[in-house]
């Protein structure tokens, strides 16, 4: 594999992990992705801080420069809450935890001889 691609990949991975740790939820990788793309594709995209329009989030959101997808919920911020002006791609929201909770299996173990 090309070394350059590997380095860029690892850098992207680190940013994603950083995003997860900062947000503390399973649904934050999208936030990190915004950071990755913000350095490239979305550079210069207008800030969309503000209230979500009554006519709908899509309508309220401003399109990213270059004809990109409108951002999720104007002013949306999944890392630290709304208000700092950073944007959130909705793609990162499609991420649900698939790990089942504890089942209490220990209490199913009987005592031999009881």
């Amino acid at each position: 594999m090309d070394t350059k691609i590997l380095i860029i990949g690892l850098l992207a991975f680190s940013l994603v992990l950083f995003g997860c740790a900062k947000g503390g939820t399973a649904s934050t990788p999208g936030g990190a992705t915004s950071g990755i793309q913000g350095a490239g594709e979305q550079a210069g995209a207008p800030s969309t801080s503000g209230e979500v329009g009554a006519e709908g989030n899509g309508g309220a959101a401003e399109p990213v420069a270059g004809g990109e997808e409108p951002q999720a919920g104007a002013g949306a911020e999944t890392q630290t809450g709304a208000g700092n002006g950073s944007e959130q791609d909705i793609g990162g929201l499609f991420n649900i935890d698939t790990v089942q909770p504890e089942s209490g299996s220990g209490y199913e173990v009987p005592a031999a001889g009881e």
Partner: protein
Amino acid sequence: MKGLILAMLLLAASFAWVNPGQAKLLQAEYEYVACNGQFAHDFVAMRENCGLVHDAPVMDSSEYLDDIDGALADAQEAIDEENGVEYGAAMWTAKTEMLALTLATVGDTFRNKSVAFHTCVSEGTEPLKVELEECRASAFETGKEGAHEYLAAEMEQGRAEVAELEAMGADTAGMGGILAYGDGLDADIDTAFDSHDTAEVTKIYQKNNRLILLFRLEKMISIMDFTEPIIEAGNNGNKEELLEKIADLRGDTSELADECAYSPEVGAGYALKNGECWSDAFALMARFNSLQSLYWAGR
């Protein structure tokens, strides 16, 4: 290049949130099973002593006890490593080994034993049972604390997820409704653990299990409702496919949420229903998570 980043993203997404209260919850279960393990040791020793006193041949239980000890050691290791899967496997092994020892002991009871031997075992068992119940009582106390902490962490996480989506402008009413049920569950914990009845404790787990499932389904619905108009107004390359999949998944998710509606009363078949609900939900969750790659592929 795009594919590599996508792969990294999906890999990162696989790191699920781990409840900080999990270790204590599992430790309490471990303590309960350790009580049972100690009882098995004491019972075997007492029974062997009765055999010596009354000149009755008693089976060799050392292998069974070694296997039980091994399972307990594996469980403790899994707790230390926060490995829920390994923990579950160790508990399954402990359960089967306990049952195996019980069956072997029952079989041995009918092999050349005198009335005096049976009387000795019967009388010797009573004080051991008292010790067992005392030990279990302590474990239930730990379990009660652990359950409160586990649920509190879960609720905190849930509220954070609600707040996150609300800040974006999503409708989180469904998620909020499940959190309200969570508050009710917290109020049931003390009664269940104080009863020292594993059936009652298990009901708490089963209800929690259902609530987590429903919370995730409601979260998926909330996100789909929120993102659908955004995607519709945008120009994602996979827009049509995304919208079609979201519409299908939205309907299926809502249907499953209705089918698996929460009930604070746990009757027969509740656990089985949980299993069916999770089985169906896993398929929906996989479809939901696959939307992410489809979304990014269209960017």
